[in-house]
């Protein structure tokens, strides 16, 4: 396992993308350690009596040259709301990099499927795949077009397919309803996904039936993020495993889904 750090970052930029999504760019004074896509940070939320524990957030993007990382934050409760209201210049304490990461595929045709804040790790993953000679394609699911975040960044890396529940953009419905999925022999043989569990379960089943490798990233509730508290477990074929150290990225076949 790679070395973990506890350290302060400074917020360089807080950019609001939609009514509930914000991207924070954080800078560190020193060189960043190597991170891998799918890994996350445990972020301390100061100044909120309702957030005693840290909040786990995926590493959305990394720029080793400028020592910056990005976090994509969906405002769902007091912690994420507080984070989304932070201003540039303020400090943020991170424990990172944590957890397992998406693997490099042994096949060339991959699809990255994200829903909600589950798109967060996929930008970094797409960039990483590209750097390793693999062309990523993205399938993004959202409630409506107003919930789509930062598509241009993904488009720089590969094709972006869209579904929205209300049909306001792309295909109407859930990700599984997109044409790219609507075939028994799809044109990809590796599927990476992050998002709501029901979505990932559907994709896991889809992949199992077609013998496609499927890597999912779980968002279980965490207290420590480093394998100490055993609060974040998920049942696997080898018994309860910690989502924070044995995950968050799992091969779907390893889970009891």
């Amino acid at each position, binding site marked *: 396992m790679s070395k973990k750090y506890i350290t302060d970052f400074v917020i360089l930029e807080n950019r609001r993308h939609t009514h509930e999504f914000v991207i924070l760019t954080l800078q560190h004074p020193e060189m960043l350690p190597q991170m891998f896509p799918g890994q996350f940070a445990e972020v301390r939320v100061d100044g909120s*009596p*309702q957030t*005693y524990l*840290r909040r786990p957030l995926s590493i959305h993007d990394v720029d080793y040259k400028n020592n910056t990382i990005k976090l994509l934050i969906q405002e769902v409760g007091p912690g994420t709301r507080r984070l989304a209201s932070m201003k540039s210049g303020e400090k943020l304490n991170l424990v990172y990099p944590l957890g397992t990461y998406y693997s490099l595929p042994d096949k060339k045709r991959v699809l990255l499927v994200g829903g909600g804040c589950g798109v967060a790790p996929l930008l970094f993953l797409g960039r990483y795949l590209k750097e390793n000679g693999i062309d990523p394609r993205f399938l993004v699911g959202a409630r409506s077009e107003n919930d789509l975040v930062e598509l241009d960044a993904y488009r720089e890396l590969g094709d972006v397919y869209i579904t929205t529940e209300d049909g306001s953009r792309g295909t109407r419905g859930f990700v599984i309803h997109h044409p790219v999925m609507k075939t028994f022999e799809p044109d990809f043989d590796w599927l990476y996904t992050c998002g709501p569990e029901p979505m990932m379960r559907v994709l896991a089943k889809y992949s199992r039936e077609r013998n496609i490798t499927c890597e999912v990233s779980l968002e279980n509730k965490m*207290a420590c993020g480093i394998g*100490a508290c*055993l609060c*974040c477990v998920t049942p696997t074929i080898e018994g309860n495993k910690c989502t924070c150290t044995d995950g968050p990225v799992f091969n779907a076949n390893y889970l009891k889904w």
Partner: protein
Amino acid sequence: MVDLSVDIGNLQLKNPVMTASGTFGYGEEYRDFVDISALGGIIVKGTTGSHREGNPYPRMAETPMGMLNAVGLQNKGVDVFLSETWPRIRTFRTNVLVNVSGSTVEEYVEIASKIAEVKDIPGIELNISCPNVKEGGMTFGTSCPSAIAVTRAVREVFPRHLMVKLSPNVTDIVEIAKGVEGAGADSVSLINTLLGMAIDAETWRPLLSTVTGGLSGPCIKPVALRMVWQVASAVKIPVVGLGGISSATDAVEFLLAGASAVQVGTANFVDPSVSGRIVDGLAGYMQRHNIEKITDIIGGLDVS
């Protein structure tokens, strides 16, 4: 140079800061954040007679300045602990105590006997106060006769340091502390978690799979401090205080109330480097107050 060393019975601690069972893994998880050898001791996870899967997810709920947990003693059992884990962690240059949890007196005795054979384990902490298992666990710690019975039985098979961890979910913790003292405990540690509960008002469901769970963190500190003070005023064996400790100031408060050492629990989750910083903070406190020996703080509370 200030002298931070304390003795808890036959255990010598370089300083009074230990880490609490279930909140510090096996120490290894914290290697990147704390110099483990700088701590007074660590207490590893609750160890049972055989492998336990623990309770179903969700096992955690956040509460105002605290958290509920319902881990339910997930661990690989004492045999795997002794054969696989202990060889890895025995080289930590600090006191590593094993937290022993059972469902029956026989199970406690079995685990303690096996640990007794591994001579370099300096002591055990008898967890008679876990609220998160159906059988045994807390019930031992909430009834005085059974607390005495399990302590006496384990005392017979375990010759080294025997610390007994008390439950706060009782009317009279002093009675139980005196009971286990009489039954041969070398020290008592307190408190374990308070039994609590959390509900999701949107889904009408409990936030823990087990409905109730153990409350820990700063929110319980006032209760812990009160119990430590009551017990330390009543027993002769050393008292190890814990419950919500997150800073050197918190640790000083427990020492003043009569604790000979402290354990840091949930705070490790919020700041994985906190235990080491509490050691440093204690030294700083002593320098600021011109105190040479930390033992001069213990029981120093002035209630006149």
